[in-house]
């Protein structure tokens, strides 16, 4: 909280202080089906694909190990891999970008 700000609630503009949590809230962005991100923080164990490779929906992409579970991640679509943003044994954070499709 620092200075008074304007806050619009149902078309009425109020002068008020904002909370840290409100100021730092994540703005919503729709999910991009062409980007595969880590759904849980963990470690990359196997990578089955490389840049430029064509994959079909359901093909295994990589294994993300978290909480002692090896999670296989499969391709959600038919397409070509534009970029692989991880290496084997890398620790990744939640929502970190791992694979991009063209």
């Amino acid at each position, binding site marked *: *909280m620092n200075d*008074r700000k304007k*806050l619009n*609630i*149902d*078309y*009425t*503009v*109020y*002068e*008020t*202080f*904002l*909370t*840290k*949590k*409100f100021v730092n*809230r*994540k703005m*919503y962005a729709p999910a991009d089906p062409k980007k595969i991100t880590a759904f849980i*923080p*963990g*470690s990359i164990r196997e990578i089955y694909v490389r840049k430029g490779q064509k994959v079909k929906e359901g093909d295994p992409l990589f294994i993300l190990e*978290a*909480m002692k579970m090896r999670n296989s991640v499969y391709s959600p679509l038919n397409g070509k891999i534009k970029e692989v943003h991880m290496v084997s044994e890398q*620790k*990744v*954070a939640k929502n970190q970008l791992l694979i991009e499709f063209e």
Partner: protein
Amino acid sequence: MSLKQKILDFFTRKSTASTGGGEKAIQKQAQMGKLTARQRLEVLLDRNSFHEYDLFVQHKCKDFNMDTKTLHADGVVTGTGMIEDHPVCVFAQDFTVAGGSLGLMHARKITKLMDHAIKMGMPLIGINDSGGARIQEGVNSLAGYGEIFYRNTLASGVIPQISIVLGPCAGGAVYSPALTDFVFVVDKISKMFITGPEVIKTVLGEDISMEDLGGAKVQNEVSGNAHFYARTEMECFDQVKRLFTFIPWSNRKKPDPFPPKSPKAKFNINNIIPAEANKPYDIRDIIKALVDDSDFLEIQESWAANIVIGFARINGDTVGIIGNQPMVLAGVLDVDSSDKAARFIRFCDAFNIPLLTLVDIPGYLPGVDQEHAGVIRHGAKVLYAYSEASVTKITLILRKAYGGGYIAMCSRHLGADFVFAWPTAEIAVMGPEGAANIIFKSEIAEAPDPDEMRKLKVQEYTEKFANPYVAASNGHIDAVIDTEETREAIIHSLKVAAQKREPRPFKKHGVPPN
């Protein structure tokens, strides 16, 4: 052994057992800036009032050479004592004894005391300072935790339960404070988390200090797990004692009355509220203008500050106050503020404390993050808690009471016993700008000068509906009152409701949203 020898033997045993983990461990405790378990009880309780139970209890563990180890009092000091001449049950984990680790007998000492507190109808105070489960005792240690949680739950709403976290309180252990009514933390001393920094780092690669993960500040400002924050242990114990002046000893009692006092003169309501309805002010100044001696004990001051909760007295009697805070996020309800208010309302209802609700609410906080965080089910908690509460419910509408926020803030429709509004109140389905935009949409769009027309229509709506009189004409509020007569009206309402009885349909228990 002669009688004299027996007595001498007793004193030797007693003093040995009372040394806890010994000189070295006690020094280490002091170096961490912490008092020992016994010192803490001395400070918290009335002078010389502590009566210890189970000093000679020993653990039964045989594995890992544990049978050769003596753990004095099994790492926890338990007993009864007095606070301001009222009896309380209290336990303090002794970090100097095996890191205050919890084994089965340690837990059984605590559960014995909890059973006692429930039976005798008196508060339970726990001082948590423990490294966690005593790993050598294996599943027996887990059994101990479970038996404590079970009793925390049985005691909930029967006796006040206070947790003072003065050291680490991690893993399963931290669920006990979470099940109690009020959690006190102290800067740099309290550490609460389910999974510690080491595990988080090895498993997930996230690097964070213990303080940033679950220190006192974090629990007080970010997570909402703590209710009171102090800079020192001494300040913390003062806060605990102050809280006890406002709450009853059990659900069979009412809080002790105090001699009535007038609010301090410097809080003049008419100087606090700004003329423009969209300008902020500090709702706590209004509270101080209404309550005895302007004395307000705020709870969870630094978390979800868009709603203010706490205890005060009016004409000598404790009331629980819930007020929208226009100074923060315009006083909206959101996920956190709903949780904060709902739990407080349920505490007050369980312990016979009348509710005074001060309304100045523009509505709910809009946003994807709020919707995805479940503002529906969180917001519903407020409706549930107010509707469920059968204590005296007094509502005062200061300025805005719009839409769902109006209903939620203890409206007549949720069973308020007394609803007052100031002449400045605006009780409406939404703010004039929003309402005019919807109702006169086509008129505004079709006008030669839409902006001018919008202004006109907003003004028209404001004059007609932005007041307390539409609600008053429907009987949704009982009286429009002047700011100056407010305190007297509240005092009178409390007198009228002194014998309130409100039977409810039989049920085992409700299923509140969470």
